[in-house]
């Protein structure tokens, strides 16, 4: 694989998005453009610089481990398209 080109169909597969041929072609060109632009970061010396995930320090926030009532099954299922026996219905995962 060419290091400087994005294999859009492969990445779309990783991202779980089906692309039409037209989309793959269009996105490929646009993403190559964008990647070409963001590669300017390669020119910057970042040795010794700490990577930053958040703008402010993030701490674990602790609380007492007490049981609390949740939203309940009915609320959890309020927006589901397909359910069965008060549970989310998932498309078959294992091969038949």
């Amino acid at each position, binding site marked *: 694989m060419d290091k400087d080109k*994005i294999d859009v169909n492969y990445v779309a597969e990783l991202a779980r*998005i089906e692309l039409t041929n037209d989309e793959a072609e269009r996105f490929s060109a646009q993403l190559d453009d964008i990647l070409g632009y*963001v590669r*300017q970061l390669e020119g910057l010396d970042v040795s010794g610089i700490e990577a930053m995930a*958040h703008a402010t320090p993030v701490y674990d926030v602790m609380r007492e481990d007490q049981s609390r009532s949740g939203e309940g099954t009915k609320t959890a299922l309020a927006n589901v398209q397909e359910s069965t026996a008060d549970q989310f219905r998932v498309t078959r995962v294992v091969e038949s």
Partner: protein
Amino acid sequence: MSDSAAKLSIVELQRDYRSGKRTPSEAISDIIEAIKLNDGDVGAYLSFDPEMALDEASNADINLPLGGVPIAIKDLINVKGQPCTCASRFLDSSYTSTYDATVITRLRQAGAIPLGRTNMDEFAMGSSTENSGLRSASNPWDVDRVPGGSSGGSAICVSNDTAIAALGSDTGGSIRQPASFCGCVGLKPTYGRVSRYGLVAFASSLDQIGPMTKTSEDAALLLSVISGSDSRDSTALSDVVPDYSSHLTGDIKGLRIGLPKEYFNEGIDADVRACVDEAISHLEKLGAKIVDVSLPHTEYAIATYYIIATAEASANLARFDGVRYGNRAVEPNDILEHYRLSRAAGFGDEVKRRIILGTYVLSSGYNDAYYVRAQKVRTLIRKDFAAAFNQADVILSPTAPTPAFKSGEKSSDPLQMYLADIFTIAANLAGICGASTPCGNVQVENGRTMPVGLQVLGPHLSEGTVLRITDAFEKTTDWHRLRPPTR
């Protein structure tokens, strides 16, 4: 309609309530009327529920901090019993919120009434609202131009008097840039100042909810209500929430305003530049001191942002799997096809592009070269601001390098769209706060004029200082009072 409550600011509306001139029910009726009359051309709203709002208005307690004040809500903040489409086909009509976001809980406790869900770029990805999957939106000053984005609907409804005030969200400028394009006030709070619980996540380390209003006075009122720590968002800061209104003294004598030399370059439209230069002289006359500062890594901000934001988006939007809510593929063969088809049909182009880009920069073999490197550059950008804020209390610039651009002008070239975010994006990377307030109008063709926004950025938790400056500017100028021509 000349006496419609829809034309008022929050402070003016409250004055009318307390003097007995109007009731909340009358005000809500006026706004519903204004929406019906004026929203057709501009598309600020995706939905509104007049009955629910009128019902709440009949019980409003006008003595509460926002008693009986209607607030329009960007359609990615959960309001129990209302849709929350994120302007996406994925969630359109099939989703009803089962809980209130923390900002909504706080608005309700303060007596406010959520009224109307505002248009946006799908999942807040965009700078023009052209990526709305549900309704096209236009700038009320010139319907051939974009309102900006992603909080385009919130900016439109505040500017064209179909709302009193609104909430938006800002991940890379999505409150400030549409405020600039439409001519209202928009404030992006410090990261963590406002809880994100119930905000549909785009890029969790950058997202922040904030007020979009007719005045900085109103922004201060709203911010005081929605800020504060939250047991449901561990990134919400526990710092005491001041009464921001008390910071609006009108006195900015001695405040140091920094002008970053990297921002004032040839990339700014000449007319926009003239408005901002005029605003700088004005602030100087009010007693502010102008100092030169430098943000040396400015040229890397957009590249850094589009790596980090898309990486976070690709993880956040994995939840849209078509199992628990939203668009679900019909009779797929297996679970992978279920995911692929549900997402393909539900997401628009820009959302797909960003998820793919984010997946790519996080994928094996590319993670260090893109994502980790961008996180390091983010540190450099944050340090730039820290150094600049040693020399200046705030940093000033245009909010956007141009007035609102024409619809379609950049929509086929995403990179050109991204490059227009140059002045707003770094604030999100650094987690600092910033506001945009109207500072002029420029001529465009056909005798039309378009508003220009002045951006004031401040260090972490300096919202009081930022609003003191924008408020002092508004108290001595009339730009924020201008309204788009009525049709």
